[in-house]
């Protein structure tokens, strides 16, 4: 049985219903892409899954313990003027096991260094977050979720303002995490990235969700992202981002 399921979910923001009758389960160890136009309710759904927004009706059933749920917010949510180094950020991922008080010891620092090496940011260990590029920062943030040993990972547009090399590294790490059993939800705008990453797709449009296979969104003849959206949905910025 899937660890994350939606039951007839209805979500609203500011008195306005954004999504209703949302059903379905997210496969364990699969990467599900969440797509939809701006304002379709992608971030709202993520907030509801994280328990930060109460549903109007229905419910989110999540059997992953709360501290193993990781959320990689859009980068704007961070206070980047705060003095913290990459290594320190990654070490805060030990919160589930260490909480506010327990000290770190050798094995944890070693694990931190392994994670940084895996993400190609070992040379940035002592650099301040405010000095990093968008891509480097995104790697560091993913490093924190690795340290957290997340079993459910929610990513909100992880590839926005990120260089192509970072996209490659992040894609690889996410694939590894999924193979190891992590359930991953990722808000995407780019159909090409969707083709590389997603196992399932939940498409939000007109207040409803539709589960589709990634193949259905891709061009049958080439296996690539189609030039224009072929499905009868209003989906302008995806094709836009695809060409950017």
């Amino acid at each position, binding site marked *: 049985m899937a660890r994350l399921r939606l039951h007839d979910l209805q979500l609203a923001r500011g008195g306005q219903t954004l999504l209703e009758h949302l059903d379905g389960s997210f496969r364990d160890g699969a990467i599900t892409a969440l797509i939809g136009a701006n304002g379709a309710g992608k971030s709202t759904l993520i907030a509801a899954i994280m328990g930060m927004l109460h549903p109007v009706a229905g419910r989110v059933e999540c059997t992953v313990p709360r*501290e193993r749920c990781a959320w990689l917010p859009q980068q704007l949510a961070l206070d980047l003027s705060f003095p913290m180094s990459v290594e320190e950020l990654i070490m805060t991922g030990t919160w589930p096991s260490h909480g506010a008080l327990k000290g770190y010891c050798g094995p944890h620092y070693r694990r931190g260094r392994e994670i940084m090496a895996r993400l190609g940011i070992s040379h940035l260990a002592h650099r301040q977050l405010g000095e990093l590029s968008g891509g480097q920062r995104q790697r560091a943030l993913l490093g924190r979720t690795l340290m957290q040993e997340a079993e459910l990972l929610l990513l909100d547009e992880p590839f926005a303002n990120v260089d192509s090399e970072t996209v490659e590294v992040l894609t690889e790490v996410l694939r590894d995490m999924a193979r190891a059993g992590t359930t991953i939800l990722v808000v995407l705008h780019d159909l090409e990235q969707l083709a590389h990453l997603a196992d399932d797709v939940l498409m939000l449009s007109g207040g409803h969700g539709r589960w589709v296979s990634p193949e259905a969104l891709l061009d049958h003849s080439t296996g690539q992202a189609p030039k224009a959206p072929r499905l009868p949905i209003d989906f302008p910025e995806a094709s836009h981002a695809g060409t950017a």
Partner: protein
Amino acid sequence: MLALLDAWLFAPFEYGFMRRAVVAGLALSLAAPPLGVFLMLRGMSLIGDAMAHAILPGVALGFLFAGFSLPIMSLGGILSGLLVAVLAGSVSQMTGHREDSAMASFFLISLAAGVMLVSLGGSSVDLTHVLFGSILAVDTTALLLIAGIASLIVLALAVIFRALVVECLDPLFLRGQGVRGGVVHGVFLGLVVLNLTAGFQTLGTLMAVGLMMLPATTARFWSQRLEGLIAIAIGVALVASTGGLLLSYHLSLPSGPAIILLAGVAYVLSALFGRQHSLSARWRRRAAPLNAPLSSNR
């Protein structure tokens, strides 16, 4: 030479009141600057000022009921400071206004109420004492109270340190871990109130903020790391409080302003010549050639 040093640095402390004053100053210098560093990093540098005004009515009430009794006045100060903090927080939550506007409203009300209360019950001398303090009048009870509060602050800060750091950087992460960020924030504001209450006897309600904020803003010109900021801020505060006391002794200056002004001198000098973000650092950076390795200051 040695005799001169002795006369300047050590002889003043043969007096009991100077010894108590310097110990009170040192205790405050250990507790206040770390709080100031966090306030500064959270963009709340002026909240300290607001809180200082907020403790005034409680201090005044304590003064009205019990006369010049430091424990009672401190208790009143703590209570009214916490009350204003809670009120400002809940008003901003209920009305959706930003917390700083609610805070500004409440501290102005508190200031007026406090001054009114002191004037009703005492003379202008008392008012001056409450507003500007007198470190040289610290007695043993006051000293114990100040040292006790300072120790409590340092301990509490050590306990919430990691939570506070994570909450400053990424409140959503902490919430995801099931920790209410509001609780951490509330405890922190409580510590700020406690610290200001400990400081008002020595520096007065208004200038107690100085020993909290000035060392922190000074440290910003020297370090980019949290530990560095805190260590430097504490160093600045220790030097300023001891140096200010000595200056006030030798030159017959009022002690509170002497301490804060000395910290102010450190701030101005650092703004001019500090390693990070200072005027001279900016000038140095502009003069660096294009292909020079990236310096640590951005």
